[in-house]
């Protein structure tokens, strides 16, 4: 019996890995075909990518970027876990980072406290912005997909309005508009390496990942959340207050989304300006899909994503089109979605027939052996 369990576990692991591997391989093949079709040699390109992507400064770059993507991925994954499509991580983190930057620049507090306040403001703003979508869903039945997309646009407008000289920002000499710089006490530590500085926020991301895993798999709340995600009706019958769960999950997702802008804000730019990175929320969706909403999977997805961006960024230098990055990423997401569904169905069918077989084997051990021998 024990041996049997292990076998199923092993197979589950294998099936779990099958989908992303399948997806990445498919993406590579399609990319190779695209490169071939455009008259370029694909293996040279892959070679350049690998070579460049593994350099020390590339690694730091990848880790730094992956930190951001990971947080975005976890924010999205939390929603996904209960069947909520938080498309609005993008708007949430931008609002959060903007207000955190504004507040952070006004404060003069001792180091840790200063950083803590900034991070808290970001999480609160993110949660609030996402919470609007949650409330609309439970009170008015508005699909969170629609409302979060709209909230993204609203966030853009709100920030554009406030981020202008004379309001909450100022015009600097270089022609950029930015909030005031956060004083030194609000800067998070960077780790100096030969490849550049590694953002200290990576540790926060790791903690978020662990908290995500523990919270979902080891707490009542997490169980309720997964139940609501697995089956609305079963959740209702089992006593989960589904409406409250929707709001709570959106708030949490938004709070994590609020952290997305923090590595950039606390470790690099120390202010919110016109060139504050955008669109990370959407990357987060891809990364969450790629990582199957699993904290480790999302980490791998985030690293892969950052690697692709880093490595393809250099492809242009080597004479390839930089759009290859988009092709690879697009194909991966498509392939992942398809591969997961295929593997999931295959796994379920396989398990069903396996259970049947084992039950039959238990029932008539002697006879069955003769027959199947």
């Amino acid at each position, binding site marked *: 019996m024990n041996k049997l369990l292990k076998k199923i576990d092993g197979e589950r692991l294998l099936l779990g890995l099958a989908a992303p591997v399948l997806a990445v391989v498919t993406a590579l093949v399609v990319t190779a075909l695209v490169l071939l079709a455009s008259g370029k040699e694909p293996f040279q390109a892959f070679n350049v990518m690998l070579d460049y992507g593994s350099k020390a400064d590339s690694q730091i770059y990848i880790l730094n970027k992956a930190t951001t993507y990971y947080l975005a991925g976890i924010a999205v994954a939390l929603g996904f876990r209960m069947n909520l499509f938080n498309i609005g991580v993008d708007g949430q983190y931008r609002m959060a980072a903007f207000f955190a930057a504004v507040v952070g620049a006004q404060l003069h507090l001792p180091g840790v406290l200063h950083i803590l306040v900034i991070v808290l403001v970001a999480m609160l703003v993110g949660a609030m912005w996402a919470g609007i979508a949650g409330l609309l869903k439970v009170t008015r039945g508005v699909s969170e997909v629609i409302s979060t997309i709209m909230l993204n646009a609203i966030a853009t407008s709100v920030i554009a309005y406030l981020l202008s000289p004379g309001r909450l920002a100022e015009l600097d000499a270089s022609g950029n508009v930015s909030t005031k710089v956060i004083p030194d006490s609000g800067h998070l530590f960077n780790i100096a390496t030969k490849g550049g500085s590694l953002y200290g926020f990576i540790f926060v991301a790791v903690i978020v990942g662990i908290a995500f895993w523990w919270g979902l798999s080891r707490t009542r*709340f997490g169980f309720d959340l997964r139940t609501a995600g697995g089956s609305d009706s079963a959740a209702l*019958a089992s006593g989960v207050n589904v409406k409250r769960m929707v709001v709570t999950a959106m708030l949490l997702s938004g709070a994590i989304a609020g952290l997305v802008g923090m590595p950039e804000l606390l470790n690099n730019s120390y202010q919110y300006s016109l060139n504050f990175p955008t669109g990370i929320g959407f990357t987060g969706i891809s990364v969450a899909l790629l990582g199957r909403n699993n904290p480790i999977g999302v980490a791998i997805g985030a690293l892969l994503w950052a690697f692709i961006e880093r490595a393809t960024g250099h492809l242009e230098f080597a004479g390839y089109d930089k759009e290859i990055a988009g092709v690879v990423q697009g194909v991966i997401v498509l392939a992942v979605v398809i591969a997961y569904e295929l593997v999931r169905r295959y796994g379920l069918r396989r398990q069903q027939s396996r259970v049947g077989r084992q039950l039959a084997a238990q029932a008539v051990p002697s006879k069955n052996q003769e*027959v199947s021998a």
Partner: protein
Amino acid sequence: MANHDIDITVSRGTVHALVGENGAGKSTLMKILYGMQRPDEGTITVNGERVELHTPADAIARGIGMVHQHFMLADNLTVLENVVLGAERLHGIGGRARNAIKKISDAYGLDVRPDVLVEHLGVADRQRIEILKVLYRGARTLILDEPTAVLVPQEVEALFDNLRELKSEGLTVIFISHKLDEVLSVADAITVIRRGTTVASVNPREVNARQLAELMVGSELPSPETRESTVTDVPMLTVDGLRLSEIDPDGIDRVVLDSIGFTIHKGEVLGIAGVEGNGQAELVEAIMGMRKPDNGTVTLDGKDISQALTRTRREAGIGYVPEDRHRHALLLEAPLWENRILGHVTEQPNSRRGILNPAAARRDTERIVAEYDVRTPGIDVTAASLSGGNQQKLIVGREMSHNPKLLIAAHPTRGVDVGAQAQIWDQIREARREGLAVLLISADLDELIGLSDTLRVMYRGRLVADADPSTVTPEELGSAMTGAARGHLEHPAQDAADTADETDQAGE
């Protein structure tokens, strides 16, 4: 392998019943015949020709069609659209298709209206559409997977008339059922499957239900009847003046439950009979706190829980075996041990102070699996991979594991084989001896009569009649279920006459 040495021969123009316990391999056999799964060895011969069925499309091409237990219809499409969906090439989607449907419907007495939206149809109508879908695709052999599980006695009769019609037109029907009386009444031949192999082929005229059941289980059967009363006079659940109205899809405010009141005492099983859709599901959900009634009170063990959340009610000691276990009682893609936590996440041994205790939950799942004879290779398989009966045993085991004061059991043995059925009955009886109150809702009148201490009949959202299970007959109950009789059902003929006036006064 789930099946080995299956030998079955079905003659054309007959209704051939296939009976066996859950997990005996009926579904696997059907999947093989319908091309959804491939056999490791052995052959299938259709009309004297050896065939290999790789996909359902192959099976359909050979004239084999399947009516699944769970209907596969799109609610928001009309009957016509549902039928032609995926078979547009046969007769198009317009007038020709409509004519073809009419023709089939008339030929077999299916009485199908092509332009009605499926969401407005009842279960029996939906089933007829499923049958029509299969016939429309040219099937000459129909496989029906537990078709009567969802029907009331009158509907079952209508279905059997349809099947006889099909048979007389030369079609072949393979019929899977647990209800042995039905099998005996409609089948021309019966094959019994036990543990993956065919153990007997019998002629329905030569066996009775009990013999058939014993063939299925391979041993002597327990009886569902117990008559020693354990009813006390301590009220456990009191429902008073419950009223619930809801807006139906047509936008009309409809009263679903009206002035419902009853009391279940410790050690009492209250059975509620009724044709499905007369408010039983809503009643259960109102007691569980899943629906908010307009008014009325629910009192459990002296405490008013009318405003309590579902979770609070569960913690207060309500065990719940829902009607639709896939929708309400299981996380199909989660492992068994997580399903064991479902609904009781706040209780020991599943968690303590908000933190789950997976190790304890797993241990307790092992215990339930052993005690309730859940046939599974382990507690890490998904709930979806268990057969219906074993899923149900797990659910009953789980609900009984938290010492409930009240068990709400809606169709607890639906789709469950005789062996498991007997076990579930035993569990309910035993708990009742220990002072449990049970609200039993069932479409199986024998089960209701056999288990209940008190019977009530529900019709159009009201409790219209009551009966003493020791004297009432299924026929009497049946007529009350259709609204033909009201009041106390002791002396059927006379009572029906007495209550006729009452009916008119209380009428809608």
